[in-house]
Structures are given as C-alpha cells and as structure tokens.
C-alpha cells in the first residue's frame, strides 16, 4: 500500500570557512551548529537548545570577516562564503570581558565549565575589587528604574542576595542569576505558557520577578520546573539539590542519570532520574525527546517521593 511520506523541505548546502577551515552545512545552520559539527568549542550561557536565541550573554560571540561588530554564534546563520573566526584577538577580548563582568558580580560557582573558560580567556574578575556585601532579601526587588546609585569603585557591584525559599519544591537563588532570560522564555510563550515570571527593573537592577514580586505560591507558577530545566547557572534548583549543597552532600560524581518514563498520565513523558545513593535527587527530561522536548509538569518533575518512602511497612 502506498502512503505519503513527509519529508522536510530540502535545504541547499553552503560552503563557508570557520577558523580557516572549509565547512559545508545546510542553509539555515547557525554558526554555533556549524562550529559543533567541526568540533570547534564555543562557550555558551544564554543559548538553549530548545529555545529561540535571546542573544543576552554575548559569551558566544565570533568575528565575521567584514562585519563591523562581533556576532553571537548562537543566532547568526552561516552564509555562503562567510569567513568566521572563533578565537581571534577581538573574540578573546570580548569573551574575557563578559566573563569578568559576570564573574565579578554573580556567583558562578555552580555554572559548568566557567573555571575552564576563565583560564582560557585569562579572565580576572577579581580586578574589579572585593565583592560588595550582598543585598538583604527584598532590597534588590524593591529598586526602581532610574534610582540606581553608581558605586565608588572600591568594591565590585554584585547581584548577590539570600536565596528565595518559599515552597518545598524548588529554590530561586538569584545570586547566581546572569539574566539570560531562559527561564522567562520557558515559562512564557515558548513552552509552558504560564507567564509566572518576567524581567523587572532596568540595567544592573534588572532581575527575574514574579508579578508584583509575590512569593511563588501566590504567583501563576504551576511548579512544572521547566525553568530549572533550562537554567544554565544553578540559580534555579530542586530544593533537594539546594539542601544537599548546603549540607555538603551533593556529589555529581556519585550520581547516575537514568532515563525512564513518567508514572502518571498516559502522555508518556521521558524523565531522567538523577540518583545519588539510591535516592532521586533531581529530575530532568531529554531535550531532544519527541514527547517532552525537555518539559515536564509538576507531577513528573517533583512527584517521585512516594517511591522512596521506605520507612517500614
């Protein structure tokens, strides 16, 4: 029997060069994807494989020959004949600056790969001076646009503040937030469509906030945790991870990651269980899974405790 087979629109192959090497990729490929295809590593922070690029962090910038400004590799499409440099002096300088500014003001201790990048680009965040005192809880959230007072240069400005622990499921530690917008996009029209969080404030005072800065239980949050899934720095984390890090027991080397299928409804979401010492400590979902695209609901993300109530019986 004949049945129609759906084929994607055919894409023309184009030739370009990356760091002097010729690459041949389908039209529409981003510079970042082309770099990955030839094994050239480009650092990324705000890029998300399930999200539309926001071009917020600028750590992935590359130099396109003939272009006035550096281009973000995550969103710039490769064009025929384009010549891209990923490790030129301008690129290195720019990435160094991005890392230094972030490193001086944000707690990057749980952001993967940062120490390696700092070393590679010879970044010295400490040259801006000792870090300023963290703000008390709520102070940064109360700041109004236009009322920011510039510092005197004696200390490095910081976004640090106490972590927000207002529910049992997940913690928002905005000392670690680099304002990449990924959580906002995952919560908003790209995936979850709950619109519980957005960006409030301007400039250095900009921060991720619920509507009127209410606590999560009073917000539109439905605890799907799809913001945690995309957070690149650990600013958003499972309460289990937050508590274990605090207690010094979080140990990723001891963890296994096993992808299985959620136990609740019949949609069949793939869940990756992060297990340490036979306890589920975190749940994620594969970003390339055709059912979930990395998204889960409150039950899939947090509804695992019942299996590890091993108290007796």
């Amino acid at each position, binding site marked *: 029997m004949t049945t129609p087979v759906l084929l994607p629109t055919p894409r023309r192959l184009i030739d370009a060069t990356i760091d002097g090497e010729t690459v041949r990729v389908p039209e529409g490929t981003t510079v970042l994807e082309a770099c990955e295809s030839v094994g050239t590593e480009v650092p990324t922070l705000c890029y998300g494989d399930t999200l539309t690029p926001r071009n917020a962090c600028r750590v992935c910038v590359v130099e396109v020959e003939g272009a006035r400004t550096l281009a973000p590799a995550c969103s710039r499409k490769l064009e025929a004949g384009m010549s891209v440099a990923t490790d030129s002096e301008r690129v290195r300088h720019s990435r160094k600056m991005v890392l230094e500014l972030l490193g001086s003001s944000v707690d990057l201790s749980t952001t993967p790969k940062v120490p390696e990048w700092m070393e590679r680009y010879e970044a010295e965040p400490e040259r801006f001076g000792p870090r300023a005192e963290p703000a008390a809880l709520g102070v940064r959230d109360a700041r109004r646009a236009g009322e920011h007072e510039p510092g005197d240069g004696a200390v490095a400005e910081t976004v640090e503040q106490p972590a927000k622990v207002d529910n*049992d499921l997940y913690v928002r530690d905005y000392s670690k937030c680099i304002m990449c917008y990924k959580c906002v996009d995952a919560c908003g029209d790209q995936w979850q469509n709950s619109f519980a969080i957005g960006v409030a404030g301007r400039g250095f005072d900009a921060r991720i906030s619920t509507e009127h800065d209410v606590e999560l239980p009073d917000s539109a949050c439905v605890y799907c945790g799809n913001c945690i899934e995309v957070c690149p720095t650990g600013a958003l984390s499972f309460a289990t991870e937050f508590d274990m890090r605090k207690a010094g027991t979080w140990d990723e080397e001891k963890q296994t990651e096993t992808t299985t299928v959620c136990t*609740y409804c019949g949609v*069949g979401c793939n869940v990756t269980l992060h297990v340490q010492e036979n306890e589920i400590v975190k749940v994620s979902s594969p970003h390339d899974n055709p059912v979930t695209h990395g*998204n889960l609901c409150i039950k899939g993300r947090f509804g695992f405790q019942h*299996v590890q109530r091993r108290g007796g*019986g």
Partner: protein
Amino acid sequence: MRRSEDFSTSYDRLTRPLVREHGELRPATWEEALDRAAAGFRQGVDRHGPNSFGMLSCARATNEMNFVAQKFARVVVGTNNVDSCNRTCHAPSVAGLAAAFGSGGGTSSYSEVEDTDLIVIWGGNPRFAHPIFFQHVLKGVRNGAKLFVVDPRRTPTAEWADRWFGLNVGTDIPLAHAVGREILHAGLANESFVERATSGFDEYRALVEPWTLAAAEAETGVPAEAIRELAHTYARAERAQLCWTLGITEHHNATDNVRSLINLSLLTGHVGRHGSGLNPLRGQNNVQGGGDMGAIPDRLAGFQDILDAEVRASFERVWGREIQDRKGLNLTQMFEAMEEGELKTLYVIGENPVQSEPETHKTTARLRALDHLVVQDIFLTRTAELADVVLPASAAWCESDGTFTNSERRVQLVRKALEPPEGARDDIEIMCAIATRLGHEWERPAAEEIWDEVRSLSPMHRGMSYARLAELDGIQWPCYSEDSLEPSYLHSRLWSKDPEERGAPAPFGIVGHSPPVDLLDEDFPFRLTTGRRLDDYNTGVQTGGFSSPLRRGELLDLSPEDAAKLGIEDGETVRVTSRRGSVLVPASITESMRPGLVFMTFHFPHQVDTQLLTIDATDPIAGTAEYKAAAVQIERIGPRPGQQAPSERRDAPDEALR
C-alpha cells in the same frame, strides 16, 4: 518556609509480605506468603474451576509485566478473566475505535496536533490532566490552529480556546448528532470519503435528523449558533484533530459517546490523514499498553481477537496450553460475579479498586466475600488491607526494566534507576514464583526476553527491538518489521482508491442519546461531575508523597450563582448528599462552574471520600462506570468558616457520616 497543608495521607512502602491470621494481617516471610498465595489459588481452581479466578493487572506497570500477568491467568490458571483499571477510564475509547476501524488506538500523533487547522478537545482538561500534551496543542495554536473546547466546566483548557461549548453533563451525543446533522444539511460532508470508506451512512443520516440545532440547544444548553459554528468549522477545516478524555468515557453509555465523535470524523474525512485524526488521551502511564498486551478479557497481545481460533492457535503453540474460546469477565463483571459467588479468588496487582471504583461500600463488601484475595502493591492500600496475602512489589517506572506505551501508541523504554526497598520484589519475579508453586516452572526472564516473546506473537510490535526503541526514542505501533517505520497516523488505507487496499469500510455508530442514569429532581437538584486537578493524581497514593504548593485538599467547586442562592461562602464546609451517601467538603466558589453544576476530585479519599457519592451505572459494552454524572443536594451546615479550626474541618467527614 511556607508549607502547604498536608491534605493527603502519605504511605510508606511495603517491605514485608503480610498474611491474614485470625482476621488480622501479620508480617510473614516471602516463602510463607508465596505458599499461601499459591495455595489459595490452587484450592479455588480445584473446587470451582479456572473461571472462579480473576486477575486485575496494572495499567501503571510495564508491558512486560502485563504480558506476564495475562499469561499467568491464561496459562497457569486457564481463564480469560483478566482486566485492569483501564476499564474505569478508557476501555470505551478502545471499544469505540475498534468497532469503527478495527484497532483500538488513537489515530494521530502529538506532532500532528502542532500541524493542524482545528483542534477540538471534547470532554477533557489536558491543561491539568495531560500538561505536556497540551504544550503540543499550544504549539498548534501558535502555528495558527483554532482551538475549540467542549466541556461542562470552563476549565483551564477552555481558557485557551477560541470557543468554549459549555454543554450539560451527559449530552455529548445530542451535541455530536446535531453537529453531524448540520454538516449534512449545509452540504459540507465529505461525500466521496463517506461513499468509499464508510458504511451505515443512510442509517446515520436518519439517526441525526431529529437533532436540529434547536432541539440540541434545548438538550445540551449550547446555543444553536455555537453548534452551527462548531459544525461548519470542523467540516471546513483542511485538517482537524478531535481529542477526548474521561468526560466522554466515564459515562454509562461511554462507548456510544465515543462512537458519536468518531461519526463526525467519518462524515468529514478527518481521519487517516496527516494532521487529521482522533486522539483519546489516556489517563495512566500504560493504559494503552496493558490492553495491547492482552491484559483484557477479550483480546490477546497485539489486539488480536480471542474468539479467532487461528490467533489462539499461534499463542497455544508457544504456550503449550489451550486458551478458552470465550471472552473472560471484565473488571465490572468480575465484581458482579463476586457478589453472585461465581468469582472466588482474585489476584490484584498494583490496583486499588476500593478507592478507584464507584460505590466504595459495595466494592469493599464484594472483596470481603472472596475466598482468597492476593494484593501485590508498593503500598498497603485500602484494597490491600482487605487481602489474605499482601506481597510488596517494586515500582514499575523506576525500579524495573521494560516498556510503556503512551497515548500516541509510542512504545518507550522504561529503565531501572533505583533499587527497590529491601524486602520488595519485582512484579514479574513474584508472579513467576507463584506460577512455579502452581506447577509451571517459570524462571524469571529478563524484560527483553519477555518483550521478544511479545514481538514473536504480536505482528504490530514485531519491528520494535529494544535496541531500536532506544535508538529512535520509542516507536509507534504498528511496526511490522525491523527495517521500516509506518506513518505517524493510522488508517490511511481508508483513502485508497483501490477497494482491496481500502479494506473493510468504517461503520457509522448508530447510537442514541441516553441521559445520565442518576436523574436530577427537587431533592437532588445539582449535577456533580468529577475530574483531576493539576498536581494530584487519582486516589492520591502517589502524589501524597510530595508537598505541592498548589494543593488545597478536596473542594466542592460551585458557581457564584448557586453559592449566592444557597448562602454559601467560599471555604465554608457544606454537606453534599447523593442518593448513595453523604460527605462534608469545603466549598470553592469559581466562575468556571455553570449554575447547577458542581465538581469534585477523588484525590483525597482520606479527607473526603467522593466515591460515596458516585454511581456505578456502567457502560454495557465497555464496563466503564458513570463517574461523571451524579445527582446531589448541597446543604449549609454552618457555623461560618471563620469559627472553625482548619483541623476540625479536615476531620469532619468522620465515620458517623458514612
């Protein structure tokens, strides 16, 4: 930190087998428990024959476990009395789809919902009950599809809709028939498809003729103009998806409801094409797979008819035992047979009928009447409390290997991530141990070996090796060979120009309207319907384990109009009484309810046992109970909520009221 008030009872895992002695359950060794489990079954079969045995298999366990469970019933015991709580939700979808198309699965895929022109969600609230499916719906909406929602409640799903059709509970068939009639009268039917690919059209036309827009408006409460718009939009859409959940299937005439929706797809040709199809959304992780594996009384693995001698012969050759040439009892019939004393022994794996079946008292009494009840579960559920032997099991989704099949027919790998608690054993291992005691030396096979047996017997699973399932992120059935994949949608044959390829035409369902059994009258003037909330699940046994900030416990949702009429304030505890029972429950006033309609879940049976109110009128074809339509009255009990401590509120529905 703000903690949500704990409305649920969280259970501890079972880690020791229990056996009943002098009326009480006491801990036992595995040896003793398995011996007693087997002895009870043996005695029952010896005295009363194999059909006095029933098996309730688990819609949340793996395909492999379900396959072994039905094999246990058919080979070790020799009966077809095997079923699962599939019966309590989606058996009508399977029955309806099978009657029309010959196979009981949804016809489309999630990705096609993103690539369609109209999405009709009929009797479902996927924003809460199937949130990740609803993300695909929202992708479709953002790609330009229209979204129509048919539901008595203005649900969170309906909030996203272009149009919401708030029909009266139990009037789905009049609405569907009126839509069909309007399509016909407007000349919008797909005549060539109807002629080539369907049968029974003349009867269908006569059937829907009385359902004018005005007649349907009077019965359903949906304005005639809205029904007309639904009909015209569905018929004119290039591609359209029709999705439903339990709002269609938890009725006494559920299979008829499903047929009435399928009729619309036949009339317009919205089936068997990319982007056009029918999607029943399944409520439990492996409801689809449990049925596909033959853990149902009338089908063998691969949805093969048990009445077909050739089919039976292929299984008999592999299994070395004759299979009874008649359908077994379904879950509902098993419970009736318990009352009539025909079913004497029952093996329940991972099911909790005491709390999931309607009319709790009746279910409990029937289970007590059994000679021998073995319950295998991860918790000591209300059902397990009644057992003669309780066997602690492992959790399928994270403590065993195997596969589940989802609502888009995708078979996906389940992988063991955790060791079960010490003392608990794998479901399949337990069944093998009992089978061995009953004279069938079953070595515990690896999950993949069981799966390969399934593949050898079920053509539609044949091409799905574990390696391929891992490589391709699961495979949708049917998959006949390891070298190929079928399209993501079913029944493209219906569009073939060649009559031979086209095969059997899909019959229109000639189904009439049958209003809810539990009639409204002056004493019971409110229609109670039930459903799920976002963060809780079924009887709360699983979701009770985590602290949800959204959880507010059981509530009676009612409209502002009814609240004003009865003088009820938000949060005030009221008495809800049906013809069967009475409960106390806090009221929640919400504009999502229409006057005359009230809503409860059954997530918090320890706080409020909603099943005391529901009715067990069942669908004669599929055996699903009418959870969605009870008649109730609501009374204020005062005093005002401010004068009551929360703990007293929670404790209020005590035994005296039952």
